[in-house]
């Protein structure tokens, strides 16, 4: 059974490309265009990893992270931030970081290490 990953980003092109990468890496992918949609998905699905952008409309990555960490259902799910400006992320708690831009190998190293 493939591991599942929820990807969250408001850039549709980037979302498409990262989906191609993760499918190639053997993951089953769920996608959301912002934190709000991701939170709705997390109400019914339990992905093995959450990979989320930081700057998004409606609900940003930090707000999503806070909800996830305070939820019994998903509080232990590994959470990886993707951001081009990681210095702006102010949330506290256990999360991992992928600095945009990144290459395929960097992405796979990160998600594989978090899912193992």
């Amino acid at each position, binding site marked *: 059974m493939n591991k599942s990953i929820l990807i969250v980003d408001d850039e549709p092109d*980037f979302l498409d*490309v990262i989906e191609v990468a993760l499918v190639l890496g053997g993951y089953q992918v769920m996608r959301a265009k912002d934190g709000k949609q991701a939170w709705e998905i997390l109400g019914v699905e339990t992905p093995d990893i959450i990979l989320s952008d930081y700057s998004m409309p409606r609900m940003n990555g930090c707000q999503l992270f806070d909800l996830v960490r305070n939820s019994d259902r998903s509080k232990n799910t590994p959470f990886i931030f993707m951001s081009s400006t990681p210095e702006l992320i102010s949330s506290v708690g256990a999360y991992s970081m992928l600095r945009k831009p990144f*290459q395929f190998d960097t992405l796979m190293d990160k998600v594989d290490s978090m899912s193992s």
Partner: protein
Amino acid sequence: MEQILAEWDRFARTLELDGLLSRKEIRDHAEQILRAIALDIDTHQSAEQQQRKSQGLSPGNAAASGASIHGTARQHDGFTLLQLTAEFRALRATVQRLWFALGNALTPAHSADLIRFNEAIDQALAESVVTYVAQATRTKDTFLAILGHDLRNPLATIALSGSLLAQPGMTKEATALLAPRIKRSASMMNSMINDLLEYARAELGGEMPMAFSDSDMSEICRSAVVDASAVHPQCSFIFNVEKPVPGCFDQIRLQQVFTNLLNNAAQYRGDDLPVTMTLSSDVESATIAIQNSGALIPKEAIDAIFDPMVQLAITTEQTERATTSLGLGLYIAKKITEAHDGSISVESRDPVGTTFTVVIPRGRP
């Protein structure tokens, strides 16, 4: 007080502050500063305190803290440092001129008051400048952070796509999916870099090169719709035009304006709603309206929407998080419109949504 404020009002008209603040706001600020200074003069001051104040070592007082707030406010309002210092210079000159015009003899007590007044003005000015510069630095830091974010996002799509193309397991379908995304991302980066260069050129006082020629505004609009559709393939763009609108325009520049406006409208529209572009004309001018429905633009953001630095200062403070757009496109749209002797305006209200309206004269400027 009223006489000083009336003089001040006359001076303010010479500061080219139109559009930055209303007349009432300018008067309110001057009144606040004067009241704070009057309070400072009425407060007892020892020789030692006076010495420390002259060396800029005085602790904050009412005038100084009022001026601190004033400095930050002026940066928000889009004032230059020169305009900020001109305000204090004019206040000093106005008060002294009016005082001497009353025919007052200069007694030792009056001299002391005048010295106190000048000290208070100097200290208020110094405090204002400190907070003005601090605010300007914060805004510039935010500008750079967002610039990095805006450029790295499409770069992230290109970088990941590039490394994927070298992977052995890539199918033909997956490869075909990457190509248009790489192209769009490169095009977005190119557009951002162009905007940034235009902004830098305008800020450095350079002229925007224009190339006017006989052309058809409906074709310019149509080309902009094609450009925006390529960037936002999921968005439906509706273009309303009845007939060709010939005139003397800079085609490339105006296409840049309309593409920027259409891209913004697509980015900030509500889910699955269309963006509408309407071209109308009379003998004198062409009017282009670009409308979307979605979250409205707050009133305080509308006032400064064509000034990226002011806009950044407002949005960063109000939302306590970084915005994700520099708004350079709107600044450049205004510059290009002005180079055509035209105008650009925005209205955002329920239930119509947000409409940017550009009016361009059809004759050569």
